[in-house]
């Protein structure tokens, strides 16, 4: 059973900010609920108030323009992202991550903003947002601020949000010209699973040589491995560059052993998936 709580459904962000200020730690925000309700059922949290964001019009949906890129509202569901041609065409790394997050029924409710606010090291959308240099639009009683996604995750289930702050949207600049990307997720089965290891990669080789890699489930937070990025800027055979990237990734991550996988296997698979991602994405160039 889910412990009793009062359900609140503000209609504006002003109202939301007011409620958050009033109830503080006693309140939790609800978007899709696919993480929140599980925690409540397990009695890991017992909020007295649950504030539903879905009544606030300005938090809904996606928007995109040539100059500013993509903006994903706090209550936009993963299936909305999956169905968007813009996301599929221009933000393929994110699109491929969303497509392997949970299953179609859950994606009907789960949101991207919820996924990053839950701040699991296994968050499937986080590595994609990291390689896309996304920014998190935050609002609260003290006004608004922008947090680069690379500074957003601070620990297991921890973010840099301050009390009274909420994420209004995630903004993603248009990727560099000619960029290709993908999310390579490894689970225990082919069916729906949490990531044992996930690797997002973004590469471009037209004008600027770009190689970005970020991972899930191998560190206390989703992790972008900036150290690989110089490798591709230099000269040398592609195969060697990829192998150097693989060994840098394996050096920088710090996976643990848990019921989903052992440390040794995660280290191995992080390397294997990084190689697979870079070979597939750079293969033609």
């Amino acid at each position, binding site marked *: 059973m889910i412990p009793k709580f009062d359900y609140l459904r503000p209609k504006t962000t002003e109202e939301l900010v007011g409620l958050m200020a009033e109830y503080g730690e006693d309140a939790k925000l609800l978007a899709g609920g696919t993480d929140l309700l599980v925690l409540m059922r397990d009695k890991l949290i017992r909020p007295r108030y649950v504030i539903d964001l879905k009544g606030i019009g300005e938090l809904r949906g996606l928007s995109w323009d040539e100059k500013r890129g993509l903006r994903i509202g706090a209550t936009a569901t993963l299936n909305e992202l999956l169905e968007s041609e813009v996301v599929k065409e221009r933000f393929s790394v994110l699109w491929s991550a969303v497509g392997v997050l949970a299953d179609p029924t859950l994606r009907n409710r789960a949101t991207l903003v919820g996924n990053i606010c839950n701040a699991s090291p296994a968050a499937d959308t986080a590595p994609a947002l990291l390689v896309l240099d996304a920014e998190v639009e935050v609002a609260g009683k003290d006004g608004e601020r922008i947090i680069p996604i690379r500074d957003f995750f601070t620990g297991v289930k921890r973010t840099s949000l301050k009390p009274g702050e909420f994420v209004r949207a995630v903004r993603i600049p248009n990727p560099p010209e000619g960029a290709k990307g993908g999310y390579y997720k490894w689970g*225990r089965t082919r*069916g729906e699973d949490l990531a044992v290891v996930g690797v997002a990669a973004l590469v471009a080789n037209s004008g600027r040589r770009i190689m970005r890699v970020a991972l899930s489930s191998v560190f206390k937070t989703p992790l972008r491995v900036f150290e690989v990025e110089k490798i591709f800027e230099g000269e040398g055979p592609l195969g060697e560059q990829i192998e150097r990237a693989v060994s840098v990734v394996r050096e920088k991550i710090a996976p643990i052993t848990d019921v989903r996988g052992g440390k040794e*296997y995660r280290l191995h698979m992080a390397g294997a998936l990084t190689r697979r991602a870079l070979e597939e994405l750079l293969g033609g160039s």
Partner: protein
Amino acid sequence: MKYSYVGKEISRIDACEKVTGTALYTADMKLQGMLYTRLLKSPHAHARILKIDTSEAEKLPGVRAILTGEEIPHQFGIYMTDKYMLAREKVRHVGEPVVAVAADTEEIAEQAVELIKVEYEELPAVFDPCEALKTDAPLVHENLHEYLHAPFVFPKPHTNIANHFKLRKGDVERGFKGADVIVENEFNQPMVQNVQMETHASIGQWLPSGQINVWSSAQSPFAVRHLLSVGLGVPIHKINVQVPYVGGGFGGKAGLHWEPLVVLLSKKAGGRPVKLVMTREEEFNTAAVRQGMHARIKTGVKRDGKIVAGEIEYIWDSGAYADYGVNIGRAAGYSCSGPYEIPNVKCDSLTVYTNHPYGTAYRGFGHVEFHWAIERQMDLVARAIGMDPVEFRLKNAALPGCITVTGEKLREDCGRVDECIKAVAKELRWGKKKPERKGTKVRGIGIAALWKAPAMPPYTSSSAIVKLNEDGTATLSISLIEMGQGTATAFAQMVAEGLQIPVEKVKVVSRQETDYAPYSWQTVASRGAFMDGNAVLRAIEDARGQIKETAAELLGVSKDKLTLADGKVLAEGRPEKGLPLGTIATCGILPSGSGIKGPILGYGYYTAEGLTGLDPETGQGLPALMWTFGAQGAEVEVDTETGEVRVLKVVTALDLGKALNPLLVRGQIYGGVVQGLGTTFSEEFIFNEKGVLLNNNLTDYKIFRAPDIPDEFVPILIENPKHNAPYGARGIGEHPTISIGPAVANAIYDATGVDLYDLPMSREKVWLELKRAEGRK
């Protein structure tokens, strides 16, 4: 023989109800004044209960009954009465219920549970069944010597051995002396869970009049009634057990489960109905599970491939209770060799108590577990003498005339494992060139044979009633539970065949109720189609006889000149004289208007024939009502970089005697194969060092989902009819799960040259083993 309905591919008769969501399950039911139950469960694997304080919970408005173990001293069990409904004096596994609360709502019951305080004193626990056998191991049941049990169970007092099944055939020592090669290996598998879609659900009501009503997701209404009567000391006629549709059983709802607890709560609450629906987490921690197993197999073989001796040890992790576990150990023991003839065999199958959740029946009843060991061993032995695994199996196959491990001479109509093995080998293109390695991916094929007979006492029975209705339709009452297997549809076809009416005119009563329904022992053991099927055939024969008697009198012809066709009784050579069946359903009507005879009500029964108990020292005797033989094969692609095993194809050949409905048989096979693949690759209980289950949910206990199923299924139905069976049919409900694990592991060896001995074969484990093998090179 040509049949009009039997053997045809007819859709399930319950399909419409189930796909439209109107089929009723116990969890759906809501009765006037019903209370809801929540359980307080043990956080410890083994601990003495020092004090239970329920005073705060009692004060909570809406709480109607609270029970602790002290108040309910009744012991329940089918084979070994070792269990109380709520822990008394001590807890024996994490998740064991200690206190039960019935309240007006689930929320109140749950709040009340949180208000109860229990003090425990932790005791040393034992988790490994091999450790539990040691003399200094903590005892899980100090009073084992006092427990009542079935006569064919042999507990060892003052130890953790709940049952020691012994089998001795021939002279094993001499057998090994005569062997050219001896191969010995050990195999393991963890506890797993049935994971029925519907969790365990029961409603109980103990009225002040003494009448007890139960609604339950049970596989066996009559077993529930009987065991309740014995445990509570209430006469049977005062108990009525109703079972609507069951949302999956797979053995986990056989025998008795939580029915006594809700009945006792109802008594304390003054007769209000009390409902308990297990949460998914409770299914793993609190409801019963499939036992873990450790196997050691030593095989002596001649260079020519003939097995001359086998020494077999099965050690079962039964968990905290062994009511069903004792019989699983026994069934595995008397089938221990697999489908092969071995002249000298020594088998010890030990059901051992530990402080894990407790074991129960699971599709295959020990056979999935021991075939993992036996059928891996068959490949390892074949390799040791340089023989092809298919040829080696055929050389030792248990064919008609062979003597099984219990001394049974297999009859001519027992079915043919050799035909199954050959059919699978052919479908896998056995002996043909292997495909080339592609990058990190290698392919291989593997085969494994199987056998299983219904595991039950030697004297069980079933019955059936068929009623003819006024419009010429028929209603069949049975007590077999429809939990997905499709037997009711096959029986509808049999009634249609026997009365020569369309299947649409046959109803099989889907909601069973012991007050009205004919007796059947249990819906278990792949016995339904055969045993209840025989009862149905006899009920039809009885009804046909009554129909003909009435018609003979009306038509003025002798009974033996009458036939049934097109929904009518016809006199030979006088088709114009046909009587529609409906016109004689309630009685025959003479031209004068007088009635003769009476309502047509056919009754039939079947009792297991020719079985005996087994000798306690040697296990010799006749335990098997029928063997169903089979073989399974797999083609796999192993990614040596990641350890991922992709199953390209699974072939299943079963000698089922007769496919009563090939469409449903194939459905049984697909389902069984996928369930088998889940336990092969990803299902496993993972405990910490304190006996706490770390993956008691479907996030981390990985059952197979649609993307995981093999690319191709090939079912092969072999029909060597069994005598005295309905149309020759044998049971196959459990068999498609049995040899998936070893077939896949044998294929993985074929692909990679690496042997696996422990289930499940997760991606990580396969990768680790490949890496270890690489290191050895």
